[in-house]
């Protein structure tokens, strides 16, 4: 009887395991972003003339919210709306533009960058529970994705949602290259 029960429940267990593995956001820096850094595809700050090239205009970076049922992670390459909150309840797909008033910096052997202000959504009603924010380069033609940041699952109903950035240093900065 036990064997029969185990046989019958096995497909259910496999399905549940696959569901849990396939539908979860994972905090990560996108692998493609690491390559794009080497290609000089992102400008988080404006450089002074350095004899090689001069980047005087920073790119615009945005933060978008994703449902807990989505599966964003290191394998992402570009921003898209798959798994994003629906464009209802005062949420606009594409997310919000981040304030970028602080140049990337270094401390010890670590380089870091953090947006200089919180990201917030006013009078939001989310289309479902969400637990991830995707950072991407909105200036880039392909909307190249930088990273996925996870937090406890939240559902917002007719109220504000604020995402406050971590301390901008080599230990906790939003983006760190150590």
């Amino acid at each position, binding site marked *: 009887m036990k064997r029969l029960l185990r046989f019958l429940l096995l497909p259910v267990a496999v399905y549940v395991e696959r569901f849990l593995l396939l539908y979860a956001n994972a905090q990560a820096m996108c692998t493609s972003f690491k390559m794009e850094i080497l290609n000089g595809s992102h400008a988080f700050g404006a450089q002074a003339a350095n004899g090689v090239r001069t980047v005087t205009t920073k790119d615009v970076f945005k933060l978008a919210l994703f449902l807990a049922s989505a599966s964003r992670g290191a394998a992402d390459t570009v921003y898209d709306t798959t798994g994003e909150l629906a464009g209802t*309840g005062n949420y606009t797909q594409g997310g919000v533009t981040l304030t970028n008033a602080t140049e990337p910096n270094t401390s010890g052997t670590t380089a870091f960058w953090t947006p200089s202000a919180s990201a917030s959504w006013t009078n939001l009603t989310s289309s479902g529970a969400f637990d991830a924010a995707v950072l991407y380069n909105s200036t880039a033609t392909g909307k190249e994705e930088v990273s996925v940041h996870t*937090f406890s699952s939240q559902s917002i109903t007719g*109220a*504000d949602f604020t995402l406050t950035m971590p301390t901008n240093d080599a230990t906790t900065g939003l983006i760190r290259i150590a």
Partner: protein
Amino acid sequence: MSQILIHKLVRNGWPQDCEQEMIEESLLERTEGSIDNEHEHTVWTEWRLDGKIVKRGAHVHLKKNVAAEAVAAMFGS
């Protein structure tokens, strides 16, 4: 008596498209909660009317995030 803007419970399920109305805040049950771990400090506030959430806001403070390790290879063995 202060008033608060809430969603009317015009249908079951997620009230994203519900109408909103002002209601006396004293009629609502207000609860607050928080999470504090190495990744975040989160505080949320919920307002319930007859046991149903009619308003919920949250503030997530990220603490520590993603880092990439930069590796420079050594020539030779």
